[in-house]
């Protein structure tokens, strides 16, 4: 590859052709402020914070300006500083600056930038925007008064997820991020994946906060409050308390939750194991009986809603299994209640998920309120702080039993390819009578958006695929539709990288996202837990074995179906006119 010699503020660096000035500056350890830029997701040069002098007639946006041989860049001059500052003052003049009560207080890229550029005055202040807050959706709240129109959310929604629920509308000073006919996000084809939240630099998009409902339930002496935490929560929540990205903090997390007043602290991973038993059986049955293939996983509620809007022709391919969150709720309010003589109507199930779509899922009528409240990793962190619990010094603790027992297979649900791997571990065992050589599963590990493998199982070639990110899901489904690909089993996760990068996970600022792959780091935490686990296959989970023996009979039984399976509904792809 051709190397180019460029000079950034007098520092010489060599960069490959195609490198932006921003990336070259990083090599020279020169810090250029950015706001709209988000690597690989939003590279549009819109916010003008990264303007630099490249010797031409106009200042250029470093994030999109390509290096050329001999390029000399000045990133720091009185003129550049003043122009950046004036631009930031303008942005602030059109921003609801109620920082103290903002959901992103102290975790706001705009706030950080204002401090960094030493803005102490808004000389061109304007009238408040006075725009309505859209809080009708079960999952997502949008507050355009805070929006700085960086377009990261619209980029990820349109280009990465290919959902297209939100886009830039109107023009000039009236420009807003909005939906078809300016409807509520609840009334359009939004799948609630929450990726927009994760990329928002400010508090313009955030999860519907349900923490008060949880506190209220805990306060209520009549309620038996059970909490479950999803695999990815433990891989991410540490970041909220200053741990490096990818630090597994299961023990600390359980310890902290136990101080909050729940009656039981359980592990969603147990339900993940149950999902594998049901879904694995479903796969085997479909293959044996000539059922609808490929079978497609159904754990990701963002993906489910996407399928319902965009690919209703694949609804019969979806596994009928409920997601682990919902299996857990159903289990608690039936089997667990019965065994422990608790009135199911008094049980209040709280789920902690890395996910905003789980809020919508728990509210679906097909789910019978088995989960009362679903909160995100961020909300749990907020509750822990609110309760005055010092997370870092909390003594590590273990999940309560019996629903605290889980296998490594359940843990890796949080990473793309994890559900597939967990299912194959068990399916292979059922058919072959021995454990699979893990090497065979390596092609479906990693953060690649689309991963494929062909496995020899019981003399048959089983073609599998794992896709994460809905844009990749669209690609895969189109290939299946066109007959280009012939899979038996597909895992689809709505969020790029899977649940570890879910829309409910701690928000990582662009300054870090632009440097490291948070998906890979968090996934590592899960695979390390898997490696350490006593049991690594869902079929080995003692609780699951007991559950079938005592209650449901066998995977796929009538009772199991009644409790653990669901159905889907076709939704409009193109919204009808109001």
């Amino acid at each position: 590859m051709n190397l180019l010699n460029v000079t950034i503020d007098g520092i010489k660096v060599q960069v490959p052709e195609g490198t932006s000035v921003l990336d070259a500056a990083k090599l020279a350890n020169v810090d250029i402020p950015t706001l709209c830029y988000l690597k690989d997701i939003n590279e549009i040069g819109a916010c003008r914070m990264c303007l630099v002098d490249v010797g031409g007639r106009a200042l250029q946006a470093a994030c999109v300006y390509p290096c050329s041989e001999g390029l000399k860049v000045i990133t720091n001059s009185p003129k550049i500083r003043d122009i950046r500052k004036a631009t930031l003052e303008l942005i602030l003049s059109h921003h609801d600056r109620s920082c103290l009560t903002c959901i992103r207080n102290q975790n706001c890229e705009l706030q950080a930038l204002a401090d960094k550029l030493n803005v102490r005055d808004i000389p061109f202040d304007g009238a408040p925007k006075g725009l309505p807050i859209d809080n009708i959706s079960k999952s997502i709240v949008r507050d355009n008064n805070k929006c700085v129109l960086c377009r990261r959310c619209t980029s990820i929604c349109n280009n990465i997820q290919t959902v297209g629920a939100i886009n830039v509308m109107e023009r000039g000073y009236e420009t807003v991020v909005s939906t078809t006919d300016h409807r509520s996000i609840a009334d359009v084809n939004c799948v609630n994946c929450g990726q927009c939240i994760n990329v928002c630099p400010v508090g313009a998009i955030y999860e519907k906060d349900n923490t008060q409902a949880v506190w209220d339930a805990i306060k209520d002496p009549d309620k038996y409050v059970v909490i479950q935490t999803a695999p990815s929560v433990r891989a991410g929540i540490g970041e909220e308390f200053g741990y490096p990205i990818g630090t597994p903090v299961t023990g600390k997390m359980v310890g902290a939750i136990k101080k909050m007043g729940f009656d039981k602290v359980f592990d969603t991973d147990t339900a993940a194991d149950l999902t594998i038993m049901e879904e694995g059986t479903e796969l085997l049955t479909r293959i044996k009986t000539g059922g609808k293939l490929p079978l497609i996983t159904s754990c990701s509620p963002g993906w489910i809603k996407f399928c319902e809007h965009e690919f209703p022709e694949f609804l019969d391919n979806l596994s009928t299994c409920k997601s682990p969150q919902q299996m857990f709720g159903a289990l608690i309010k039936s089997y667990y209640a019965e065994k422990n003589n608790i009135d199911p109507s008094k049980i209040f199930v709280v789920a902690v998920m890395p996910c905003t779509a789980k809020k919508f899922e728990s509210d679906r009528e097909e789910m019978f309120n088995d989960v009362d409240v679903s909160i995100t990793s961020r909300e749990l962190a907020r509750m822990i702080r609110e309760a005055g619990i010092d997370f870092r010094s909390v003594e590590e603790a273990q999940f309560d039993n019996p629903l605290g027992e889980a296998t490594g297979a359940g843990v890796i649900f949080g990473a793309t390819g994890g559900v597939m791997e967990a299912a194959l571990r068990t399916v292979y065992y059922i058919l072959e009578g021995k454990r699979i050589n893990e090497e065979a599963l390596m092609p479906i590990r990693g953060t690649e958006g689309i991963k494929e493998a062909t496995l020899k199982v019981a003399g048959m070639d089983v073609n599998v695929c794992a896709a994460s990110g809905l844009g990749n899901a669209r690609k895969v489904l189109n290939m299946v539709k066109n007959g280009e690909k012939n899979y038996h089993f597909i895992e689809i996760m709505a969020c790029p990288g899977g649940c570890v990068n879910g829309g409910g996970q701690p928000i990582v600022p662009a300054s870090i996202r632009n440097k490291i792959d948070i998906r890979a780091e968090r996934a590592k935490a899960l695979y390390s837990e898997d490696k350490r686990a006593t049991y690594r296959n869902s079929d080995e989970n003692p609780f699951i074995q007991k559950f079938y023996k005592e209650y449901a009979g066998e995977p796929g039984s009538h009772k199991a179906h009644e409790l653990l399976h669901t159905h889907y509904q076709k939704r409009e792809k193109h919204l009808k006119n109001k």
Partner: protein
Amino acid sequence: MKSLTELKAIKQKVTEVPDYKIVVGMATCGIAAGANPVFKELKRIADEKKLSNVDIQITGCIGICRLEPIVEVYTAKGERYTYVKVDAEKAQDIIQKHIIEGKPCTDYLICDDGEACIKNIQETKSFKKQIRIALRNCGNINPENIDEYIKNDGYFALGKVLTEMKPAEVIQLLLDSGLRGRGGAGFPTGLKWKFAAAAQNEQKYVCCNADEGDPGAFMDRSVLEGDPHSILEAMAIAGYAIGSDQGFIYVRAEYPVAVKRLNLAIKQAKEYGLLGNNIFGTDFSFDIELRLGAGAFVCGEETALMTSIEGKRGEPRPRPPFPANKGLFGKPTILNNVETFANIPVIINKGADWFNKIGTEKSKGTKVFAVGGKINNTGLIEIPMGMTLREVIYEIGGGIPNGKAFKAAQTGGPSGGCIPAEHLDVAIDYDNLIAIGSMMGSGGLIVMDEDNCMVDIAHFFLGFTVDESCGKCPPCRIGTHRMLEMLEKITAGKGEDKDIEKLERLAYSIKEAALCGLGQTAPNPVLSTLRYFKDEYKAHIYQKTCPAGVCKNLLSYNIDAEKCIGCGLCARNCPANAITGVVKSPYTIDKDKCIKCGVCMEKCKFGAIYKK
């Protein structure tokens, strides 16, 4: 069309020359002024009187808006008569007296600034000072008839290029001609083509920017409506030069007549094989499609225009990559403005040297201006580069109405700046206009007189860009709005010390930081009025007065006690009951009640009421 010989045959085809050819100017301006009923009436009477020796045709705009509808009569002897402000009644007279009786209706003929009427437009002073290259066919040929274009050398440049020249030679000829883009920035056209020709790609595109959007500008519309084939021909030439087989014309949907005539022209050109496959029997093929703009000014910016053609929200994108390498659909693309294209066939036919002799050292050829505002001869003119603003305003434009004093002229539309009286003798070309803080722009020229408030003018132009900002970058989206708020404050009499400095800082920041040309030039009207008329700003801010008497909030109406005879007419007409007094002694105005409507001043027969 298989060869040049075929084209020549069409040109030379002898058609029977009628005794009289009557043409009606039917561009949008003519139609708006009432050309349709005139045309119908002429036809009706000609039919009724069974006049077989008369041919009645339509044509484009000749450029004198204030005199529309215009009907011209050409005799077999080669005489030309220009009738102005024609209505159905005058049309009857023209047929009866001129055609049937052979006596021209001298009363309806065009006059030269209050002098005796003369025969035709070409003899007017203002026309004699012009050189018509881009507008050569406007108002002269029937734009809906391809044969008329061919008879005026149409498509011969394309024929010459395809059969006699290599692509590189075409580009060299353009480079030699010195033609610069007429859309505003003045980039050398040949250079633009050279870059696109050098780009390696199977697919390239030629785009025509017909999204004319400056307030008061209608140069491109006139060409599209009056001479659409010249654009098609030039685009095909561009296609050959850069190696493209597909062109797009991005034309604003608010130009329905232009759209109709372009569509018709494309159809006719295809029927003649002048567009399509193997043009002139060569292996060059070229097709053109229209794309209609939906009324966004920013879509005149090249990258926004291409984004819009791609079917996306019309917003600019950063350059580089430049369109010559990565333009429409990511392919090498050239984009030229209508007027630029209109020049090209003539340059090819007459040569670079011929073109080179017109204009100034760095600005060759002519420029079309749409002249409007406080000027007698509003309309469309085409002048050689280098003419002074004084010549344009006083000789071609006929000066300022009502004997008022010239104050400034705005060129370059909302992106340009104002030129004050001290620069009336600057020769108009790209570089001179930039040097005095304005720009050539696409050709809008708005004249202001002593009654215009320059702060108000800056407010007007800035208001336009604020409305038209796409909203992508904060400097333009928020910055221009903040500037507008400040101007509103100043014109409302609420200006404060340091407002001028704030305005200047903001203006320079926006100029430097905005993403595209629209934003980068948006502060220009403010900067140029600040440059030449800072005293007016200061008067608004510090003295709380509007020297031109425009800004309502800074005005007060007063009664001169010496002139007032106490008739009470003003008080009876005041809608706010703000005037009181006793008959036969001077009246007074209660300033708290006065709504500054000016009715009293209009009604007073003694000039006793004045505003200050």
